[in-house]
């Protein structure tokens, strides 16, 4: 009898347990913990698993706190143990509509290299979203969880105080509600960033590939269509709304210029001149006067930087290099450009004279990008002379000579002083020269460093390392060298996304790009950096930086630099790539890879300082 009782109890418990595990569930996770399609935290983020309950208070409410003029973000994860329909509804009541919810469904990318799923692309959905699991288009047959990214936007003029909201999941007869409490702080996130984060790209043929349906409707005229220019502007907008900027290089390594990147030229020698601005102005006009951003939350603003089409083959033909005809072609056309920009009052943008070619691509006999051989620098000096000749003294149009430097940067900082004003430096080699950023900025130059986005297989906080390093180093910005190239099949055979931070929205019925989780985390990081930098009137910048570094990975500021290696005193054409690698070991070992919670800690640090400042 006793044995029967025991069996009954076990059976009863099993039934109860199965009922519990079969129940639908709705979970809120901090932005740094990404879920996979089965409800587990993805492996690279498990280092931050202790954050899992950090959003909840003791009453199981989701507690959010944010400054005005920015975003607070988190994940919601819908879990259904069995296939079925569901509806998710997220709201925060604000009668003034100064607090708004942006909801995104997270796409689970299958990465071929490690055969796992990672969420990254964010598909905008209405704040009431109905679908089923498994999600039909994501095609994961055993899917039991769907993650959503929630952006809570707090306008700069929102009223400080507390707002209530909820996330409600309906699945079959079950209804589950997570109460949300948002505290809007009185502080306002500075609109200007402490660090410029650039998202680079090359040409525009990739747009036709990624928006193939649009292109196929009229391939003959697509590159001159309103859709095409609208799409380019949409790329600028998506990066701008995420506190970044966007660059599109308009020429190839041998000097071929895409028609939309340059005015049309005619003639030769001293008769060479501009005959049409039509495509150029359609492309750039709304970017230079800011109207392309009129509907943005951040407001209308001209783009701060743009590549010019100038290269060794444009506007002057390389056929005449070194001759009077080359100088005439260059000077006359660049003068016409300056006049056009001035007449249009496009005076808020830095127009970059930038040489991207490398001799290994066989177009020209000198490296414009990453000069290694000092003999190539004579070309820079000559272009500096030509540019000076082309521009009237005191022009309000901002032409700036940019150089992307690595090997020989220390010598170039000296030799090209007064010629190059915008330095984009390789991060590894710049880490040898701790005094360089201050020296360059003190003389009025702008300094960025460059690298590439982390993979989705890295921890969620990995993307924050680049802007943080820029701020700790005291440089003006950071460049992701390629950010619009997610590979042939990012949806089902993903390469990890080290060349993409946005995706085409065309597969989801949209005519614009869609963001990624990494881009959102980067934006939130930039918000915090703007806050921290904004506190420098109350604390020393060094102290703020030291606090952020300590919070991030328990590092000291010196850990972010490398000792000047012996090779720095050798001519750069004697350096080996592997030796550079060795010379950057120090910082790699000291810093390690950022754990998922790294930026969470910096965010808390910023919030604490803000509260103290108040």
């Amino acid at each position, binding site marked *: 009898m006793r044995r029967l009782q025991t069996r009954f109890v076990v059976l009863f418990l099993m039934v109860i347990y199965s009922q519990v595990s079969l129940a639908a569930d709705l979970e809120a996770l901090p932005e740094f913990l990404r879920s996979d399609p089965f409800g587990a935290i993805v492996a690279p983020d498990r280092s931050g698993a202790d954050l899992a309950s950090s959003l909840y208070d003791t009453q199981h409410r989701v507690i959010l706190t944010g400054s005005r003029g920015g975003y607070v973000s988190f994940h919601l994860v819908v879990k259904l143990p069995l296939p079925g329909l569901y509806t998710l509804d997220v709201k925060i009541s604000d009668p003034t509509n100064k607090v708004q919810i942006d909801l995104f469904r997270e796409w689970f990318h299958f990465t071929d290299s490690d055969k796992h799923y990672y969420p990254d692309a964010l598909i905008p959905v209405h704040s009431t979203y109905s679908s089923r699991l498994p999600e039909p288009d994501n095609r994961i047959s055993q899917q039991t969880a769907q993650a959503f990214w929630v952006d809570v936007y707090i306008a700069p003029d929102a009223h400080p105080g507390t707002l209530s909201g909820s996330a409600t999941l309906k699945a079959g007869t079950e209804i589950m509600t997570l109460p949300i409490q948002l505290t809007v702080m009185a502080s306002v996130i500075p609109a200007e960033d402490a660090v410029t984060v650039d998202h680079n790209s*090359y*040409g*525009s*043929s990739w747009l*036709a590939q990624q928006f193939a349906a649009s292109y196929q409707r009229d391939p003959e005229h697509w*590159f001159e269509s309103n859709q095409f220019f609208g799409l380019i502007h949409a790329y600028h907008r998506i990066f701008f709304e995420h506190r970044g900027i966007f660059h599109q*290089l*308009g*020429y*190839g*390594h*041998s*000097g*071929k*210029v*895409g*028609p939309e*990147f340059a005015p049309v030229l005619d003639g030769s020698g001293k008769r060479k001149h501009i005959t049409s601005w039509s495509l150029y102005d359609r492309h750039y006009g709304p970017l230079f006067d800011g109207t392309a951003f009129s509907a943005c939350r951040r407001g209308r603003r001209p783009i701060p930087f743009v590549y010019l089409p100038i290269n060794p*083959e444009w506007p002057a*033909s*390389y*056929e005449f*290099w*070194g001759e009077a005809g080359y100088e005439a072609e260059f000077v006359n056309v660049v003068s016409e450009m300056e006049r056009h920009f001035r007449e249009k009052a496009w005076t808020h943008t830095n127009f970059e004279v930038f040489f991207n070619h*490398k*001799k*290994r*691509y*066989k*177009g*020209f*006999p*000198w490296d414009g990008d990453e000069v*290694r*051989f000092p*003999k190539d620098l004579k070309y820079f000096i000559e272009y500096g002379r030509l540019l000076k000749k082309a521009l009237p003294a005191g022009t309000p149009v901002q032409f700036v000579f940019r150089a992307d430097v690595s090997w020989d940067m220390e010598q170039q900082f000296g030799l090209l002083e007064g010629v190059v004003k915008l330095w984009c430096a390789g991060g590894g080699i710049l880490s040898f020269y701790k005094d360089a950023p201050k020296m360059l900025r003190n003389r009025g130059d702008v300094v960025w460093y460059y690298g590439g986005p982390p993979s989705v297989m890295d921890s969620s906080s990995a993307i924050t390392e680049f802007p943080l390093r820029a701020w700790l180093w005291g440089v003006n910005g950071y460049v992701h060298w390629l950010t619009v190239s997610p590979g042939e099949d990012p949806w089902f055979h993903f390469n990890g996304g080290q060349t993409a931070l946005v995706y085409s929205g065309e597969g989801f019925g949209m005519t614009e790009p869609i963001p990624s989780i990494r881009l959102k985390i980067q934006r939130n990081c930039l918000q915090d950096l703007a806050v921290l930098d904004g506190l420098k009137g109350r604390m020393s910048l060094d102290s703020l930086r030291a606090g952020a570094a300590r919070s991030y990975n328990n590092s000291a500021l010196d850990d972010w630099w490398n000792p000047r290696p012996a090779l720095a005193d050798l001519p750069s054409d004697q350096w*080996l*790539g*592997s030796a550079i*690698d060795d010379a950057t070991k120090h910082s790699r070992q000291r810093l390690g890879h950022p754990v998922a919670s790294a930026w969470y800690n910096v965010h808390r640090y910023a919030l604490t300082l803000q509260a103290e400042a108040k």
Partner: protein
Amino acid sequence: MKILYLFALVVSFIVLLSGNAKLNPEASTDLERQLDDVARVGSVVVDGDVCQKIVTRRAKEFLFAKEFRDEFLAGDNYDVDDVAFNTVKKTLIRLSHLASFPADVNLWMPIEGHPGKIQLVIRNKNEMSQFWNWGELYGDMVPQMETVLKTGQRVTVTNKPGWISVLAPVYNSSGDVVGLIETVSQVKVDAHENVK
């Protein structure tokens, strides 16, 4: 007056047709003929001795170098003599003006000690080549190139749909074929291709 108007209309129509013919696949014979003319002239005016001075000894030494910790070793050591390069490049650009349509004249050189391999040494502003795989320092020599280098004959290649290349020998002062030029165009030029 009406007759004049009609005459002008007919002339415009003919001019328009002949202009379009350059972009029409059926008119590729004209393309081929012009490219062959350019190649023939190029064989005479491109100076093989100068071409041989373009790629530096250092670049040649590193061309096939492999280092597992340094995937860019060969590219990072690629270097040219800019005076020789500019001299030949200017000639190639002027040659391309002989065609009445957008065309490039590229210089290819065999690699000493590596039979079957060839490298593109100079490209030009339309970024056209039927043989160059974007970014590669050197590649496998196609049989037509081998023919040109061995026999000194010009060879027309239309392997890639819509592309026409004429390969022609480049001689040095000893009378040896030391390289070849590729005069190349496309039946339909893609304004956005290779802007990267």
